[in-house]
């Protein structure tokens, strides 16, 4: 046993929380996932709209349940080996494009991040957390927010740092935060002050 920071009790409590988190991610795929035509982008417009809507739900629910922030195009989501079907690369592009168009995804170059909460919703959650903790007008690192002990159990804990900075920029536009970028491109020295 390596207690890490603090006592054995704290370590134990963290393990319990992590286990609870893992148990909550027994994500069940919807029936469409086992329906072979679901992996063919449908030619009939109305049917395609319905199909894309189902894909959006699947992608959001899957990533939220597994706490995965970035889409992996070679991942389980787009292929079902049990029925030997997978979305073609073009199909994946169509699905992700639609995801972004509907506000449930955001692109950073080639990377696609899933927004199971909208940017506005994330902004509100993080801002409220900061103010509730009495952290207004103090400088926090982005690291503390996405990976600090203090945010364990919060829905934005483990958030990808690029996505986090994207959300904070939104808060900046609302006048509720100030982003302080450091020198590194990976935001490892970036900070924020909430108002």
């Amino acid at each position: 046993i390596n207690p890490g920071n603090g006592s054995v009790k704290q370590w134990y409590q963290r393990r319990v929380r992590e286990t609870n988190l893992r148990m909550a991610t027994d994500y069940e795929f919807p029936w469409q996932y086992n329906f072979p035509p679901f992996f063919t982008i449908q030619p009939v417009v109305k049917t395609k709209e319905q199909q894309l809507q189902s894909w959006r739900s699947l992608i959001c629910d899957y990533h939220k349940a597994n706490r995965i922030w970035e889409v992996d195009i070679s991942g389980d989501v787009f292929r079902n080996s049990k029925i030997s079907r997978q979305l073609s690369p073009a199909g994946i592009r169509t699905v992700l494009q639609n995801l972004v168009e509907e506000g449930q995804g955001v692109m950073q170059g080639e990377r696609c991040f899933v927004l199971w909460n909208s940017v506005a919703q994330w902004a509100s959650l993080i801002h409220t957390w900061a103010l509730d903790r009495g952290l207004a007008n103090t400088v926090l690192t982005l690291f503390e927010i996405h990976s600090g002990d203090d945010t364990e159990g919060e829905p934005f804990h483990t958030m990808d740092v690029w996505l986090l900075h994207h959300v904070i920029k939104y808060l900046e536009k609302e006048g509720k935060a100030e982003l302080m970028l450091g020198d590194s491109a990976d935001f490892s020295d970036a900070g924020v002050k909430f108002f």
Partner: protein
Amino acid sequence: MRRNVGIGAVNKKRLAREKLAQKGTEIAEIQVQQVSQQMEVFKQSLEEFATKYRTEIKKNPEFRARFQVMCAKIGVDPLASSKGFWAQLLGVGDFYYELGVQIVEVCLATRPTNGGIITMSDLCSLLGRSSGKTRKDIQPDDIIRAIGKLSVLGDGFKVVKVGKDTLIQSVPGELSMDHTTALEVAGRNSGRLQVDSLEKLGWTSLRVESSLDTLLDQGMLWVDEVDKSYWVPAFFHA
């Protein structure tokens, strides 16, 4: 002197006739009285029956079905109008009205996925799930009656037999024989339909194409490009 002739006899006869008539009226009156008394007893028993079994009728599908049969035998339609004597007494009209509304809701909700056709068994299980409360067991008989009542609103809803399956169609328009045949073939194969199974029936490729295109357009069919097969979501169960 001869008996029974003469004024005396006539008068006597008249008197006898009058008395008979009077008696007749009396008897008739008694009969009417007896019948009304019986009616009163019947009505009371009926009311007791209704109150006692109202919940049972709503809850128990077998009981409900037998009750319907009994009513049909007596020549009573408890569903005729929710303001009718029976419907008021038993509250049965409401049951089918409510069920009709729920059927419409379920069909509208599933229409984007199945193009407007849903199997009877799927509809039953979805209805059982949505209402909870007193209604656990919706039977096909209930659905058919409720849809029968819905038909007064227009012909958006109909029951279609496809092979051994019963489908409820909630989009207007007729499914042609070819369409139902194609659906039936799919139904026998867990929802999967291939072009050659229709060609085996002797259909020309134009006929095959035309039917498949219509069903595709309706959203009742999806296409799988990997093996060029067609699938009916209504018949698919993972």
